[in-house]
C-alpha cells in the first residue's frame, strides 16, 4: 500500500493502524481529523472534499518522504478522504511508528501540517443555515 492515499470511501482506521506495527516500534502516534459540528462560529452539518487526485498523491508522497528523511521513524501512513462526509467522520488519518516517541510525535505533526498546507484538496462546508462554501483559507 502507498504511504499516502486518497480514499473515496470511509477510512479504515483499524487496518491502517495495523500497518504501523513493527517489532522495533516502541511508539505509535496517530492523528485523526474529524468533521466538527461547527467552524468559525457557524453550525456545520457536513463537508465535501474535492482533490486533484493525481497531484495530491504525488505531493502527499513527497511529504511522507520528507518526514522519513527528517525524523527517525519506522513507518508512516496518511490517507485523506474525498467526497461527502457526515459529522464525526474521519477526514484525514496520519499514523507514524518509531523507536522513540519524540520522532513519532514530530513526524506525525509534520505530515499533517504539510498535508493541510500543500496537498491540493479543498473543503466545502455545508451549514445548518445558508449556502455551502468552498474554503480557501490563505486567500482571506
Amino acid at each position, binding site marked *: 500500500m502507498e504511504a499516502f492515499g486518497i480514499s473515496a470511501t470511509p477510512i479504515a482506521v483499524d487496518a491502517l493502524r495495523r500497518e504501523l506495527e513493527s517489532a522495533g516500534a516502541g511508539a505509535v502516534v496517530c492523528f485523526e481529523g474529524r468533521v466538527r459540528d461547527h467552524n468559525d462560529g457557524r453550525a456545520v452539518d457536513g463537508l465535501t472534499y474535492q482533490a486533484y487526485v493525481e497531484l495530491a498523491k*504525488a505531493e502527499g508522497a513527497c511529504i511522507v518522504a520528507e518526514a522519513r528523511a527528517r525524523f527517525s521513524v519506522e513507518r508512516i501512513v496518511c490517507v485523506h478522504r474525498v467526497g461527502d462526509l457526515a459529522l464525526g467522520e474521519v477526514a*484525514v488519518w496520519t499514523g507514524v511508528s518509531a523507536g522513540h516517541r519524540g520522532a513519532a510525535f514530530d513526524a506525525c505533526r509534520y505530515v499533517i501540517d504539510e498535508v493541510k498546507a500543500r496537498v*491540493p484538496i479543498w473543503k466545502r462546508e455545508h451549514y445548518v443555515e445558508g449556502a455551502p462554501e468552498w474554503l480557501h483559507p490563505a486567500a482571506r
Partner: protein
Amino acid sequence: MNYKLLYFASLCDAAGCSEEAVSSAACDVRSLYAEIAARHGFSFTPEHLRVAVNGAFTDWEQRLANNDEVVFLPPVSGG
C-alpha cells in the same frame, strides 16, 4: 495552441465546469490565466493561486506546449 484545463473548488463553480478544452494564443501560464480569468470572471490573482502543468507544480513563467494539461489551484483546505 490547444490546452486542457481542470477546475477545482470555487474555480470550478465560477467556470461552471470541471474541465474544458481551450484554444488560445497564450503560450505561457501567466498569459493563459489572464485570458481565462477574464472570460470566467475569476477573482483570484496569480499571487493567490498555484499552478500545475501535466500533473506537476510549476511557476507562472512556464512555457506551454500544445495539448498541455493546465490547472490553476486555489488555496487548499484539506484536513
